[in-house]
Each structure stands twice: as C-alpha cells, then as structure tokens.
C-alpha cells in the first residue's frame, strides 16, 4: 500500500468525505466485481456496493490498521453478500408466483451445460465466497482466512471443493476423459 493511499484512509477516518470519495473511486471496481460474482445480478451488485461503501464510511473509525483496509472492505462486502443471498433464499422458499412448468426431461436438463457464472451460483455461499476471493479477487489463502475469519485449512478445502464442483457443473454431460 502506497503512502498516498494510507494518507487517504487516515483522512477519511478523520471524517473527510472527499478522501473517502477518492477511496470509492479506487475500490469501486473491486467491490462491484466481488458483489457481482457472488450474486450474478447487476442491480443487486450495485445495491451491495453502495451499501458496503456507506457501511465502510461509518465504520471507518473502528479500523485500527489502515494497511488492512482492503481486507476489511472485502469482509464488509462478503457479509452483505451473505445477507442478500440468505434473503433471496428465503424468498425462494416461499414463492408467491406459480412455478414455470419445466418441459425438459431430467436427462435433457442434466445435459444442459452451464456457463461459469451460472455454475458459480450453484455453489454454497461459503464455497462461492472462497473461490471468488481467490480466483476473481486474487487474495492469498492467508488473506481469505482473515477476511472470512475461518482457519487456513478450511480455506484450502473450500477452494478445492468449489473448484471440483464448478468443474463438474461445467463438464456435465460431457465425457471427462
């Protein structure tokens, strides 16, 4: 982290809205990409990004180490994503509309190949978060362990399991050999 960024974070911690806006400019892509990968919906990703930055602005005083800003911001995004995914899951549990009739046979359905973005949505939120932080955001296992507050071994197993599940989804119906 360069000195300019460190200075911006410190200024924002002292209540400077201009400095925080500079941080938004710098990290909006990072935040939006993570949110979009997690929920696969542009509008929802926008909402999550906005919510994350507002939450970050008001919680910035609690950040003790300015050098941990990126990990801290990523943790905020992850938590908001979990909340949104849980809410979406609850809505799906109690559908208000009649479900659309599926005319495909199970065999036909199983042979449908998913895109990587669709396949990502089939993972559990925990596995999805781990793989997104690693392959989309490029964090190390150690960083992911800190962001998701789980042991290093769990990070390793979640990423491995997530990749295997994604591989199975992508190669569904194809000959693996």
């Amino acid at each position, binding site marked *: 982290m360069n000195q300019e960024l460190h200075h911006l974070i410190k200024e924002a911690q002292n209540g400077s*809205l201009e400095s*925080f*806006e500079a941080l*938004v*400019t710098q990290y*909006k*892509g990072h*935040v*939006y*990409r993570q949110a*979009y*990968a997690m929920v696969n919906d*542009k509008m929802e990703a*926008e909402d999550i*990004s*906005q919510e994350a*930055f*507002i939450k970050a*602005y*008001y919680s910035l005083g609690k950040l003790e180490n300015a050098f941990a800003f990126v990990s801290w911001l990523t943790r905020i995004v992850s938590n908001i994503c979990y909340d949104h995914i849980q809410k979406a899951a609850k809505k799906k549990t109690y559908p208000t509309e009649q479900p659309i009739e599926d005319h495909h046979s199970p065999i036909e359905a199983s042979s449908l190949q998913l*895109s*990587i*973005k669709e396949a*990502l949505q089939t993972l559990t939120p925990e596995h999805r978060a781990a*793989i*997104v932080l*690693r*392959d*989309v955001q490029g964090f*190390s*296992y150690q960083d992911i362990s800190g962001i998701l507050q789980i042991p290093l071994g769990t990070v*390793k*197993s979640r*990423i*491995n399991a997530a*990749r*295997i599940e*994604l*591989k199975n989804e*992508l*190669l569904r119906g194809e000959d*693996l*050999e």
Partner: protein
Amino acid sequence: MSNHPVVSNISAYIDAELDSTQREQIEDHLFNCRECLKEYEHLLFVKEQLKVNYVDIQAPAGLEKQIRMALITETANVALYTKEKHPFRFLMPSIVFGAIILMIMAFIPIVATWFNIITTFFTISMNMFHATTLVLNKLPIFVGVIVSVLCVIILGSAWSIIRLLPTRSFFEEDTQPSTR
C-alpha cells in the same frame, strides 16, 4: 480418485500455496498419474475461466455518483438527528426560561395589588350578606313591609309596561310611509 493422497492439494498447488516439499510431491505425482494430471488440467481450466469471465467486470458509470449522493443524504440525516448534541443546544431553552422567570418577577407587584383588591371586595360582599341575614332575622315585620312595597312596585311597573305597549304601536303606525 480418493486413493490419491495428494489430490486435495491440487488446488493449493495451482494457487502456489504449498511449501517446496509438498509442491515437489505433487509434481512427482502428476508426472506419474494421468488421472490426477487430467484433474489438474480441469481445475486449472476452472480457475482461468473464472479469471477471464470476471476480470473485465467494471463498476457501472453511475455507481460512484450514486454512492456520493447516498453518502451526502446519509450524512445530512445523521447531522439532523445529532443536532441536539450541539454545544449550545441548552442556550435557547435557558434564555426562554430566564425570560419567563423575569416576567413573573416583574408582574408580582401588579398581581399582588389585584389580589388585594379582589380579596377586599370579597370580604365586603360577605359582610353585606351577613348583615342582610341579621336584619331578616331581627326585624321580620320591617322586612315584610319592605317585601310588600317591592311587590307593589314590581306590579305597578308591569302594569305601566302593559299600558305603554299599545301607545308604542300607535307611534309605530304613525311613522309608516303614507300610501296615498
């Protein structure tokens, strides 16, 4: 695949998260195991696909402005709710309270004077009432005469009014405009 002791480390190997010993073990195994090598290629493909599909994702153009507006609105709301924590927040109520106290002190002499006057009138009224009851008790004949005289006066007044009413009608008729 479960018989391959290092398969769970393939992802960590791809991510360069193994120490040198583990890395060498994996490399040796992949060199000799076609099945694990295939798995390695698949997992590497998944990693690359994720990278390729999300690397170009950019935040929408309006997001920054949207966040800025939301922050300004939130800041204004917070300022509004915390306005009462201003250091001079007790100044205005104190001034108003002081002014009320001063007004009360200034009006005390006036209020006291009026209170005295009202009290005096009340005392006089009570004394007069007491005197009247005494007279009624002590001089019943005199009171009887007075009451009779009053009745005569009231009746005489009533009779006069009855007599005057037709007279008033005569004058009213006289003031009507002539139709001739």
